[in-house]
């Protein structure tokens, strides 16, 4: 009986559940029609078109579920046919489009209805909107060529409409949906199977400029979708270049460019003569012509496209820089040519005389072509344009063309140098960057160098640094050039002392690039004298250091140079080699065997002994299993010390060395924590040691975050190990808490959390698990079934033993590893004058810092200000404050607003940079292919996901401030 009862209870129970489910599904079903029904009712209620429009507008604001889309569409269509007012129909048409965009909805079912609506429509606007809807439907059905075919057919039918809007949409539709493969077109032997290109091409001569534009755009769309455009279009497109409307011309320029890329080698006749040229050359000439168009939009477009026409023949290319000068019908040389001549005749910059530029030979009047059909002077015009957008585009194009053609690079040099004096800073900067990019192909003449160097005095730091960057990779032809560069750089140094680092770096490259040119300059630069001893220069003088950097770098590949050094130079070398090791290379110096034997100059980076050293020491560490605990600790300590020192000495290995050192540090801490005797003794007695173990756990956690987020180039293999280390730290934390706290309740939560973490670790890194034989997690996962069921105290015990027994994981090193570093250049922290301001008001502090190897600095880098009262403030710099001077490098130039209540005397605040991280954005989650675990990601407990933190990664800088009390 009891059993029966029980069964009934169960039955009832299950029944209730079922009913519940039923209800809910029913409810869902009810909502579907209700939405459309409501709309239906609303629309029926509407007495006037204005009302109906209002209802529709309201309706459009709410999203519609996928299931009910079709119903809503039907109701809308029903009303569509009833409606007399065009504006309401228009809105309905647009709603149809909107609805068919709904994700997950397949608009197959409404294609016919939508096409039918077109039939009786009279209003042009509504027609255009309906076609737009069809376009949406068509793009939603990429897999259905027959529907697309039908839609294209419909569009073709409406191409004869008298309204430009309708024709526009038709062309757009044909462009987006027209058949791309020939085969498809033949299969469906209908009207639309006609060549879509021809249909579109016919509208190149439409009376309305908007339709002409749409036709060209549709053609471009077809091209983008992979249809090979016919060459016959070329002549049509050329005619469009002379159109009255800028948008048509702009689109036509694009079309010509596309065709020139498709048929670069075909031959086209030159009108008005019987010659023929390559199509790409002809197109190039035509686009060049557009650089002097009346509309700046077209000019920008043309200038941009020129850059990507690399197949053009070189004499056409060189024409772009040629503008035949004349004065009173006599040929005149350009200033560039004159400068070159002056230079080659040995006379340098004599200054301009009256009549210096006097025209020379007579020109045959017939030969002068004032408006060439060709490319003549296109870049000359582009670079002189009124709008800086055009100038920038022209500079970019020059850059791209020069990169592919060394001879052109040589020719465009003069023009680029001229652009260094543009009135807009952006253009100047752009041209300097461009010059840097092409500098491999060129050697600067002295007069050009002179002009380049003149810009060094620019007050804009960006410009100066870009210029230093440029000088790093320029080739100079003469020793005078090097001297000139050095003098100008030193001038720059005295004028802007903050440029110190950048100038030193610049000289380093300048020296190592031109050892033979520096050699004859050495006595002069070091001011040595054959007979007399000269006074020893001040070692702290940045200018002297700059000179030494130049010389030492040149001496690296010029063994005869050290013979010219005086005694103190050798001493200074030793000092600089140590203090500025990144700027001063190792040298083989006579009588200094120690230094020279350390490094032989011929080694390649792979055989670099320091790298070998790194690997050897790591090998040693990983084999320490056989040592006793004390030995292990000592070995680790020594290795860490070695690695840190190595990192300081070898800048290219710094990231690698630091990374491994940190890892070993974590291991050391873990070992130390586990070696403590506290584990053997009852908990309450060892409070002090507990502190050690828990701090160790905390520190390891911090370090793992650093390892994960501060290094660029960390791969998933490393991430696993880092996470593994973190897991161990968490285990340690759990054990320590278990031993120090009384009662079991808090442990429940902790244990559960820990187990979840183990779980998620397993899910995230399932592919990496086979590599982790014998590790902590490997063992833990074996014990998992036991852990889940056992009590917290048992869990802790298991953890403790596994932690002790687990092996130390080998950390594989990635190819490239760089530590994110930040260096605050300004404020320097040296000022004794406090920054005074009235309390309650703000003062702006200029912060200037260089960031290296920071990924996405806009999102992660913050500025922290610490006040003496312990108050801390974190400032998010604006994205625009970050500049990107080179790969992997960023520069933060921002203003920090400070404010505080009044102080009695000045005090120092600390400014530092923080790197914010969020384990959500963890590298693990981005690296591992999503398919394997994307579902599980959502299931991850939020506690694991949400950890956010900051890592300080720059030295703090102290700023002396003094908020004064406000005067009443």
């Amino acid at each position, binding site marked *: 009986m009891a059993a029966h009862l029980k069964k009934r209870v169960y039955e009832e129970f299950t029944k209730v559940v079922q009913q519940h489910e039923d209800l809910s599904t029913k409810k869902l079903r009810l909502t579907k029609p209700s939405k459309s029904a409501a709309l239906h009712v609303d629309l029926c209620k509407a007495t006037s078109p204005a009302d109906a429009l209002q209802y529709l507008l309201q309706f459009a604001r709410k999203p519609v579920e996928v299931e009910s889309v079709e119903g809503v569409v039907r109701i809308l269509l029903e009303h569509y046919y009833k409606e007399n007012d065009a504006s309401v129909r228009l809105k309905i048409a647009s709603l149809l489009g909107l609805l068919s965009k709904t994700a997950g909805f397949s608009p197959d079912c409404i294609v016919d209805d939508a096409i039918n609506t077109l039939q009786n429509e009279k209003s042009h606007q509504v027609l255009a909107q309906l076609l737009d809807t069809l376009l949406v439907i068509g793009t939603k059905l990429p897999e259905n060529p027959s529907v697309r075919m039908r839609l294209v057919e419909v569009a073709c039918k409406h191409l004869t409409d008298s309204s430009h809007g309708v024709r526009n949409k038709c062309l757009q539709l044909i462009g987006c949906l027209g058949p791309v493969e020939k085969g498809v077109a033949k299969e469906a032997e209908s009207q639309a199977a006609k060549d879509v290109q021809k249909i579109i091409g016919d509208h190149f001569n439409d009376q309305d400029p908007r339709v002409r534009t749409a036709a060209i755009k549709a053609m471009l769309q077809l091209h983008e979708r992979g249809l090979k455009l016919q060459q016959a279009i070329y002549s049509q497109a050329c005619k469009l270049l002379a159109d009255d409307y800028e948008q048509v011309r702009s689109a036509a320029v694009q079309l010509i460019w596309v065709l020139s890329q498709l048929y670069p080698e075909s031959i086209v006749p030159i009108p008005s003569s019987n010659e023929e040229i390559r199509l790409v050359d002809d197109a190039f000439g035509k686009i060049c012509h557009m650089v002097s168009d009346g509309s700046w939009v077209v000019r920008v477009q043309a200038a941009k496209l020129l850059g990507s026409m690399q197949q053009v023949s070189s004499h056409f290319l060189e024409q772009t820089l040629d503008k035949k000068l004349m004065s009173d019908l006599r040929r005149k040389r350009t200033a560039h040519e004159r400068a070159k001549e002056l230079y080659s005749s040995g006379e340098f910059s004599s200054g*301009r005389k009256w009549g210096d530029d006097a025209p020379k030979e007579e020109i045959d009047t017939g030969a002068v072509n004032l408006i060439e059909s060709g490319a003549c002077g296109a870049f000359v015009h582009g670079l*002189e344009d009124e*709008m800086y957008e055009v100038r920038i585009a022209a500079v970019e194009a020059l850059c791209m063309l020069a990169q592919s053609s060394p001879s052109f690079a040589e020719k465009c040099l003069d023009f680029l140098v001229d652009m260094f004096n543009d009135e807009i800073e952006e253009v100047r900067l752009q041209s300097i960057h461009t010059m840097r990019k092409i500098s491999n192909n060129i050697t600067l003449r002295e007069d050009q160098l002179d002009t380049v160097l003149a810009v060094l005095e620019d*007050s804009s730091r960006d410009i100066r640094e870009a210029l230093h960057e440029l000088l790093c990779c320029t080739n100079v032809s003469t020793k005078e050039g090097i001297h000139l560069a050095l003098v100008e750089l030193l001038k720059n140094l005295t004028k802007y002392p903050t440029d110190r680092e950048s100038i030193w770096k610049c000289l380093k490259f300048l020296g190592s690039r031109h050892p033979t040119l520096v050699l004859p300059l050495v006595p002069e630069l070091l001011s040595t004298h054959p007979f007399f001893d000269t006074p020893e220069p001040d070692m702290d003088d940045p200018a002297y250091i700059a000179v030494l950097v130049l010389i030492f770098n040149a001496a690296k590949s010029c063994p005869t140079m050290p013979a010219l050094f005086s005694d103190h130079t050798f001493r200074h070398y030793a000092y600089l080699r140590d203090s500025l090791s990144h700027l001063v290379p190792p040298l083989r110096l006579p009588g200094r065997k120690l230094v020279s034997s350390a490094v032989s100059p011929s080694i390649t980076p792979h055989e670099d002994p320091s790298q070998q050293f790194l690997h050897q020491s790591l090998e040693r560490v990983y084999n320490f299993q056989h040592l006793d605990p004390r030995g292990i600790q000592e070995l680790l300590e020594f290795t860490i010390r070695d690695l840190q020192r190595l990192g300081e000495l070898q800048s290219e290995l710094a990231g690698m060395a630091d990374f491994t050192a940190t890892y070993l540090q974590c291991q050391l801490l873990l070992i130390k924590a586990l070696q403590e005797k506290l584990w053997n003794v009852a908990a309450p007695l060892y409070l002090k040691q507990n502190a050690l173990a828990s701090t160790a756990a905390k520190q390891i956690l911090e370090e793992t975050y650093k390892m994960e987020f501060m290094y660029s180039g960390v791969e998933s293999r490393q991430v696993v190990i880092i996470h593994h280390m973190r897991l161990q730290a968490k285990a340690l934390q759990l054990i320590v808490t278990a031993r120090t706290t009384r009662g079991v309740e808090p442990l429940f939560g902790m244990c559960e959390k820990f187990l979840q973490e183990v779980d998620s670790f397993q899910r995230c890194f399932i592919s990496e698990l086979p590599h982790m034989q014998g590790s902590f997690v490997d063992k833990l996962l074996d014990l998992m079934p036991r852990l889940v069921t056992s009590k917290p105290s048992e869990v802790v015990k298991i953890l403790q033993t596994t932690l002790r027994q687990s092996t130390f994981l080998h950390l594989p090193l990635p190819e490239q590893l760089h530590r994110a570093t930040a260096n605050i250049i300004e404020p320097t922290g040296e000022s004794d004058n406090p920054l005074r301001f009235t309390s309650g008001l703000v003062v702006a502090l200029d912060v200037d810092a260089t960031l290296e190897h920071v990924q996405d600095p806009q999102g992660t880098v913050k500025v922290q200000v610490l006040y003496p009262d312990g108050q801390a403030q974190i400032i998010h710099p604006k994205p625009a404050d970050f500049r990107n001077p080179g790969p992997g490098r960023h520069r933060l130039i921002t203003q920090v607003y400070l404010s505080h209540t009044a102080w009695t005397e000045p005090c120092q605040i600390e400014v530092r940079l923080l790197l914010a991280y969020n384990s959500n954005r963890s590298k693990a989650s981005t690296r591992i292919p999503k398919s394997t675990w994307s579902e599980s990601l959502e299931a991850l407990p939020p506690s694991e996901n949400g950890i956010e933190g900051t890592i300080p990664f720059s030295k703090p800088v102290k700023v002396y401030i003094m908020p004064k009390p406000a005067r009443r």
Partner: protein
Amino acid sequence: MFSWFFLLFCDVFLVFCDVSLLFCCCPGAGQDVGRSCILVSIAGKNVMLDCGMHMGYNDDRRFPDFSYITQNGRLTDFLDCVIISHFHLDHCGALPYFSEMVGYDGPIYMSHPTKAICPILLEDYRKITVDKKGETNFFTSQMIKDCMKKVVAVHLHQTVQVDEELEIKAYYAGHVLGAAMFQIKVGCESVVYTGDYNMTPDRHLGAAWIDKCRPDLLITESTYATTIRDSKRCRERDFLKKVHETVERGGKVLIPVFALGRAQELCILLETFWERMNLKAPIYFSTGLTEKANHYYKLFITWTNQKIRKTFVQRNMFEFKHIKAFDRAFADNPGPMVVFATPGMLHAGQSLQIFRKWAGNEKNMVIMPGYCVQGTVGHKILSGQRKLEMEGRQILEVKMQVEYMSFSAHADAKGIMQLIRQAEPRNVLLVHGEAKKMEFLRQKIEQEFHVSCFMPANGETTTILTNPSIPVDISLGLLKRETAIGAAPDAKKPKLMHGTLLMKDNSFRLVSPEQALKELGLAEHQLRFTCRVHIQDPRKEHETVLRVYNHLKGILKDYSVQHLPDGSITVESILIQATAHSEDQGTKVLLVSWTYQDEELGSYLTSLLKKGLPQSTP
């Protein structure tokens, strides 16, 4: 949507290039320096373009001879308006004389900046002529004021209706602040006058721009008809380098300039350079006239170039930070400095004073930014003279460096061609240049654009034929009826239609013939063409008719061909009858008769029948 252009007659308009014959005796220099004054007569409207004076003369010859325009009678009655392109005296110097002393009360159009700056220059000019040279019979300050009251200022791209038919529109011309090109339009005829313009932007002004307005005539200056200039950047860079080097050496730089135009450009150039390079040496600008002018430069930011327009929110570029007003005492200050001083040719005034003070030191430098007339100190030192004889038999030894920089703001040959390409005129007229150089440009223009190009001499009148389009009203009924006939409408193609053109009360209307008859109260007359065609056919008349009928029926499938019982054939409304020839029975005479309206079909039929009938009857 449709437009029909009826070519009815050719209108004629006239262009006089005025200037008294006296000027013709100095070609070359005369042509370049001034007295721009052009009369345009377009569709019955007379417009005067610019009203300049000649710098080289101090007597009556300095102003155009306005009596040339109307021998007797008031100018106001003859001229519909006067347009001034920019404020240079060779374009506006004669304005007060013209309007106040000769007498003109009609509207004078100029751009806002021109209106603001023009009176300053005129007043300055008046002062020099009257106060310094002591001339009488010259216009007074009051006259300048009265003259400016007649001025109507126009905005860029603003279309101003001068009267019902005449409208003008200003385009940006570069050159100097406020320089404008003007389009003058009457009905569908238009003329564009460029004034002076510059197609390459400089440090303070943008480039001239015009849309594709396709005027009947483009009147363009041609100062640099035979020159293609080098990039401006080299010149600028050289200039800056020279100044910079001298200042760094501790030398002083003297830049003699004229008060307006180039001076501001050079100021901006130096100012931005000082800013960029963080230089500290002072820059001075001689006061007076320029200060006032600089004030206007600050106001008319919209007329300047992109850079100044974009940055003026932060800082107006004409509010110079480094450039200060000059005081005579500063010239003796030690240390480097840069001074802009007037006048530009070192012939008198402040610039000469400073020059004398500084000439002895080889560290100093003088930079001549423009052309110097022969005989001036500027010209002497530019041609290399190192010892100058000053007044009082003093000998001045010039040790300072002398540099020449050309900063001219006229379009070069390429620029002129570019403007022509932009505007697409039907005819071009070159003014403001030397005949020999213009000849070259004229050939080039005709060769490249295939438009006719004129270059009238002073006082010569050029007549240009235009094809004006005449709008005609058409009644809607007729339009609909006619469009229904024939192929579907193609908007871009001209279409032939039938109707009657009524010219009545100065208006043109196209109406249907019936309506025209009704309106004019005329009875309708029928006009029939009759034609006899001889056919060799020995058969009977009715058989011939039958053959003709079958033949036509076979060919004219689209028309209704009927064989009437009375033995005649009708094709639509065309009647064909056959009779035997009175003398030769073997020859049949076909009488074809059609009305005027069926002319097309009728003539076709006749020609068809003339070819004869097919040999074998089916």
